[in-house]
Each structure stands twice: as structure tokens, then as C-alpha cells.
């Protein structure tokens, strides 16, 4: 579904990415890991068309990306919920922008609200639809953020370290929440993270990026069956994958 062919990017004198090649299948969950500052977030912006590559080509569903792709979902570490909107209205936002929901917003608002409510219930926020962001904990805000990024059932979901600011327990909760959502909707997902346990838990394939100038240096398929649970994180196969990834990144950093 997504193909990057020899993509390079320069910011002025800074070579951010060089000759990056990567392919993501439809419905695949991909994680990109690497040492900090290696251009992981840049990769996200390239795939969504927010910035254009200096050279090389990016294709989404066979079409070359020129300008922002439409209708993709995105979530960042910073939940960026709108403080003047309730949780429910925050999650409604994409429906007010993306067709065909936008068209039916006026006469069908009730039905769309019910749809949002159902998703909120699925992530354990059923009772908080009327609450405002400042009344929610960090984990709940991030759940809301996740809901907002997939409420319009995007084909492509981009996640940029969405759980980086959360405590360990909340984080593992949200891994499960995200996995459940993915198992249900089967969107194509690209998760950028520096948490190797997170990458190994969530992804079908983990791509390892090198130090700047970044490029994909290793591809690691994760064959652990789904749904993965907390017990999975104590599985020797899982631990082995995480250790292998850690060793590779340690090696990259020492270069």
C-alpha cells in the first residue's frame, strides 16, 4: 500500500534521510525504531505528504504523493485536544472535515454522535463524553486522541510516539486498546517510537533506522500470534526480539 523508493531529504545543509526504501502492505502494522534524531518523524511527514522529498518517490496505493494525503489519521505524543470541545466533540472533529461524514453532519449528527459514543465505550471512555480535556488524565487524553485519529475509519494511521509521555502501566493498557482497534478496523498503521518493547508488541514488522542521515537498515518481522496480551511480554520469543533490536540500535549508536 505504501512504497518509498530511494527517498532522500535535505533541510538546508542537514541530510535528514538518505536513500530510504521501505514497503508497507495493506492492513500491515509497521513500527519504525531508531536512535533519537534519526529522522523517524520526518518519515511520517513524508508519507503523509506534509513535506516533499528532495529526491526519490513515495507512493500510497500506487499513486505518487504530491501534497498532503487526504483522510489519513494521525496521533502525536502531545494529544492536542481542543480545550473548548468536550471529549465527544473532539472525536467528532474529523467527521466534520472528511467526506462522506461531513455531508451528513447536519441532518445525521445524532447518528454520528452515537458512533463516536460507541468508539469511546470501546476504549473505556464511555462515561467521559461530556468531560473536557483538562478534566481527563494523560492516559484518557491519549485514548481520546487515538479515537479522534481513527473515528473516520482511515485506511492509513500514522502514530508519532503516541504513548511516550505516559507511565508504564497506562502505556501497556493503551497498547492493548490500540491492538483491539487495529484488529477490528485493519487499517494500515505506521508507528514511530523509541520504545522497542512497544514496537515488538504492536507491529507485524519492525523497521530499524540508522543514525542520521537516516535510512532503513534492518527489517524484522514479528511472528508472535495475535491478539497479544500482557503475558506475551514475558514470552521468551518476545524478549529475544526486543533484545535483538536493542543490540542493533546500540551498535548503530556506537558507529
Amino acid at each position, binding site marked *: 500500500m505504501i512504497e518509498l523508493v530511494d527517498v532522500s531529504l535535505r533541510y538546508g545543509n542537514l541530510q535528514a534521510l538518505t536513500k530510504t526504501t521501505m514497503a508497507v502492505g495493506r492492513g500491515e502494522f509497521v513500527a519504525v525504531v531508531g536512535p533519537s534524531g534519526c529522522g523517524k518523524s520526518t518519515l511520517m*511527514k513524508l508519507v*503523509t*505528504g*506534509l513535506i516533499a522529498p528532495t529526491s526519490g518517490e513515495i507512493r500510497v496505493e500506487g499513486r505518487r504523493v504530491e501534497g*498532503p*494525503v*487526504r*483522510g*489519513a*489519521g*494521525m*496521533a*502525536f505524543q*502531545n494529544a*492536542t485536544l*481542543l*480545550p*473548548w470541545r468536550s471529549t465527544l466533540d473532539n472525536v467528532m*472533529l*474529523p467527521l*466534520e*472535515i*472528511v467526506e462522506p461524514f461531513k455531508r451528513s453532519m447536519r441532518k445525521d449528527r445524532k447518528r454520528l454522535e452515537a458512533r463516536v459514543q460507541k468508539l469511546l465505550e470501546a476504549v473505556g471512555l464511555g462515561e467521559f463524553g461530556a468531560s*473536557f480535556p*483538562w478534566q481527563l488524565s494523560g492516559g484518557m487524553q491519549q485514548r481520546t486522541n487515538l479515537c*479522534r*485519529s481513527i473515528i*473516520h475509519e482511515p485506511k492509513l494511521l*500514522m502514530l508519532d510516539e503516541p504513548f511516550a509521555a505516559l507511565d508504564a502501566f497506562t502505556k501497556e493498557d493503551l497498547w492493548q486498546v490500540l491492538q483491539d482497534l487495529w484488529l477490528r478496523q485493519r487499517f494500515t498503521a505506521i508507528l514511530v517510537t523509541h520504545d522497542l518493547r512497544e514496537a515488538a508488541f504492536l507491529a507485524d514488522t519492525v523497521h530499524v533506522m540508522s543514525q542520521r542521515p537516516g535510512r532503513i537498515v534492518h527489517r524484522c518481522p514479528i511472528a508472535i500470534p495475535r491478539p497479544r496480551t500482557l503475558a506475551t511480554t514475558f514470552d521468551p520469543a518476545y524478549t529475544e526480539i526486543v533484545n535483538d533490536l536493542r543490540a542493533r540500535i546500540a551498535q548503530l549508536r556506537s558507529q
Partner: protein
Amino acid sequence: MKQARPWLLTIALFLLWELVCRVFSVPAFVLPAPSEILEACIRFWEPLLVNGLQTLYTTVVGFAVAIIVGVLLGVGIGSSPAVYEALYPLLVGFNAIPKVALVPVVVIWCGIGTVPAIITAFVISFFPITVNVATGLASVEPEMRDVLRVLGASPLEVLRKVGIPRSLPYLFAALKVAITLAFIGSVVSETVAANQGIGFLMLSASSRFQVPLVFAGLLLVAAMSIVLYAFCALLERRMAGWAFRGQAS
């Protein structure tokens, strides 16, 4: 009790003022006692009312124009780097001009009276509105912008859904400053070039040494300014209450 405190303090200040005037027998043409000012208020209630309404009128019209122009300029500057680079230095330079010095020029163009007062009130008060609206728009998180752009939102939708609501608290903060400035503008213009308005009334009263009446005019302007300020604050609570979460609930 808590709400009564500012009133009590105000009354105490006036009482102190009265006491000082009486104890030291300060002549009325230097500093009239509050009782003498009150007397002047009652005696000259009609000219005070007529001229007060005139000042209120020029101020409110000038302020309204300042809101429209200020918001439009602010949106332009805040949403387009090109407009920002071109226009902002110009505005800063323009704002550095003492507005009092502009009044004679406006008089040459428009004559005396209502029009220069409106123009001065506008000119003096639009700048803080422009700057604050632009700042409000600039405070939209880049991540939020990315989320919306990738959803396929047009620049206008980004402005409507996020930019404008985000900048409302900034706008209201500016309005509270601007309304006071607008009063200063119209009164200044009236003292220089007008035959009506509180500024004109105060000037002619002082030339006749009716100092209590001058102070009555001052207090009237202050009172009107406070009322309009309170109105802006009320609007702020209603339209951007989310920015005051700690105090509201």
C-alpha cells in the same frame, strides 16, 4: 463580602480625599473635594449627559471599527507569513506615532467634531487587537495543523475549527485594553478639535476655572470605561470561558 471589597475600598478612598481637602482647606480650583464634584454633577447633569453620550457614541463607533479592522488584519498577519513579513513592521512603525499628533491632520481632512473623534478612537485601539489575534492564531500547535491537513481540511476550515476559537481568549484580552484606549482617543480628539463631548466640556470648564466640573467629566469617562470594560469581560466569560477553567467551576 468578597465582592463588596472593591466598593468599600473606593468609598474609603473618596472619604480620605474628602478629609484631606477639608483638613488642609484645599481650594476647589486646585483639588475639589468629592462633595463639590458631586454637587457639580447634579448641577450640570444635562451638559454632562449630552456630552457624555457624544463621547460614548464616538468611542463605541471607533471601537467597533477597530474590532473589525483589527480582527481582519490579525487574521491576515497570523495566517500568512508573507502578509506578516510585509505588514507587521509597517504596523509597528505606525503604532509608534503619537496618536495625539495625528488629530490635527485628521482635522484638516475631516473638519472638527464627531468624525475625528471616531477616527482617533479607532486608530489608537486597533493595534492591540491586531497583534493579539495574530498571536492567538500563531499559538495553534503545529501537530494540530498537521492532523487537520492530513484529514484534508482547507485553510479556511483550519481557521474556523481551530484558529479562531484558539485566538478568542487573546482577542478578548485585547478588547479589554482597547476599549480603554478608545476612550482616551476620543477624549483627546475632543479636547483638541470639537464643540461637543466630554473632552470639550472639560476643556471649556477648566478655562472658566470650574474645576469641580472638570473632575465630574473625568469621573464620568472613568465610569463609562468601567462599564464597557465589564461588558467585554462578560462577553469573554461567555465566549471563551474554557480558558478560565480553574475559576469557572
